[in-house]
């Protein structure tokens, strides 16, 4: 893995989709009035005949996508994560998930990565999609995984929800990294704490693990890009090898990664204390910038460190997170 600050890429998803579509004529691209924002202006430019403007009409778009999939097409449907999940939930359930059709729902702008306020912040999209039978739910961490997720989901027989960061995407993994839909990855090995992270919180988890390591707390970091179906074997072995399990997600603590890990640990009778880092059953707010929200809603490196420090009952103040010196064209966790 690289070290922060990470270099960033623009439109890794959009390029990967174009590449896949060059090989696969059955791939269609639908956009809900957010074409450039979801990187599929690239698809529209190269395959205008396979690009469909759904307009601002998500319910209609999802039901149509289901019918397109019934006819042998593989529709990739694009909008922000909020509008992809809350608004057309019933249509996704009945037209896509229940008939188990290969529609790929791509929701950009996860959690509080947008300062646009509660109407634009997808804090429950993972929970909603995870609750639907047949749905695969993916929350990737970086540009390498973003590029790989597109071909990885191409041939799944059922529906998939992928949540993707918008804009500048950090490159965290090396070129040899392989995203697998059936596997969570232990990216750092440790003995005291098993820290499970998905999506944008992987960077914060890695930074926290490093700081805590320096203070004598050994933290393993497990990247969980696929929240459903969860790789329960890796989750259980990592949790079993630690005194404390912690989850970190840019999402509500209800229904997402934290819930999935809690259910798995509890059902196995493992009995590890658990802390869930995420939005504490609250809507967030609009702001000038996203880093402010990551700080305010407990998603910072410092918050991860403090959560682990206090859960372990360590004396004294938690070690400080290093100030991120991040230049233009770079990404560091908040």
């Amino acid at each position, binding site marked *: 893995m690289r070290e922060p600050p990470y270099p960033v890429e623009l439109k890794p998803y959009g390029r990967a989709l174009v590449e896949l579509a060059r090989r696969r004529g059955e791939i269609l691209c639908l*956009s809900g*009035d*957010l*074409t*450039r*924002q979801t990187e599929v202006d690239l698809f529209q430019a190269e395959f205008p005949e396979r690009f469909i*403007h759904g*307009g*601002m*009409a998500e*319910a*209609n778009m999802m039901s149509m996508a289901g019918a397109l999939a019934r006819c042998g097409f593989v529709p990739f449907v694009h909008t922000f994560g*909020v*509008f992809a999940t*809350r*608004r057309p939930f019933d249509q996704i359930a009945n037209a896509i998930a229940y008939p188990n059709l290969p529609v790929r729902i791509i929701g950009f702008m996860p959690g509080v990565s947008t*300062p*646009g*306020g*509660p*109407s*634009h912040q997808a804090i429950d999209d993972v929970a909603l999609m995870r609750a639907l039978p047949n749905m695969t739910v993916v929350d990737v961490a970086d540009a390498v995984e973003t590029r790989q997720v597109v071909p990885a989901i191409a041939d799944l027989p059922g529906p998939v929800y992928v949540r993707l960061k918008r804009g500048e995407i950090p490159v965290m993994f090396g070129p040899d990294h392989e995203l697998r839909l059936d596997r969570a990855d232990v990216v750092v090995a440790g003995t005291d704490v098993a820290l499970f992270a998905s999506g944008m919180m992987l960077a914060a988890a890695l930074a926290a693990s490093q700081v805590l390591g320096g203070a004598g707390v050994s933290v393993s970091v497990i990247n969980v890009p696929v929240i459903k179906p969860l790789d329960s074997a890796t989750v259980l072995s990592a949790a079993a090898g630690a005194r404390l399990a912690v989850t970190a997600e840019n999402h509500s603590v209800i229904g997402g990664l934290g819930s999935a890990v809690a259910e798995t640990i509890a059902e196995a009778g493992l009995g590890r204390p658990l802390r869930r880092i995420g939005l504490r059953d609250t809507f967030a*707010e*609009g*702001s*000038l*910038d996203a880093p*402010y929200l990551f700080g305010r809603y407990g998603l910072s490196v410092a918050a991860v460190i403090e959560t682990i420090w206090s859960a372990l009952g360590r004396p004294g103040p938690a070690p400080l997170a290093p100030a991120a010196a991040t230049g233009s064209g770079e990404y560091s966790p908040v």
Partner: protein
Amino acid sequence: MRVSDPGTAWTVPDPRELALRIRLRAVRMVAPQGFGYLGQALSSAEQVAAVFATARPGVDRIVCSPGHYIIGPFAAAAELGLIDLSGYAQNGSVFEAIGTERSPVVDYTCGSLGQGLSAAAGFALADRFRGSAARIFTMVSDGELEEGQVWEAALFAAHHRLDRLVVLLDANNSQVDGPVDSITTLEPIAAKWSAFGWRVSDLDGHDVSGLCAALGAAAGGGQPSVLVCRTSTRHGLDCLPPEADGHFIKLPPALADAAVRELTGRLEALRA
């Protein structure tokens, strides 16, 4: 504060001047960030001014369906001395760039589009239950007409003869992906509302006198009313470059200065 709170008071001596001041205020609100929903303010300035000139303070309601338009009601309320907008769009401010539940001034707004007309119908029902004759002035954007919920609300309001409901439909032909008519054919807009059982006026949305007259005559008669306001997201600000994106305008310092100069000049000319 909300405009419908009992005891709220303001006067609008000249709606034309208020429209200009909304534009100037909106430029000053957006300038510190260097970007924002200025196009929505430019497009709706006359509609907002006409609503504030027509609404009875402390009685009538304002619904701002597209949360991205909240800049207009905020600017108007600040110009009328009803709120202090300091901190607009900054971290921690209740004056968020996209309207939320914390947003003052209006009775309802939502950044998830296409939901405001249903809220307006709910207010109209509540007012009917309570015996109130408040009017509900409801800002809706043409892009929102792509959402099916708007038409569900339109059907409901006409069926239930919610004639205190008055929609100002900002037909600026602008949405994120480009001109609305390049994404979805909405026309004939007026005929659609008429077919849904609404009283319709189709008018120049930058003619503030025409808007005031239409608003004054709108409520009542057993049908909800809609004013189809033909507008542009660039109206009244000539210094905007031709490539400015109507949904989200970038306003670097030099352009902000030019915009303030232009609008200040217009205001002085109007007052002279």
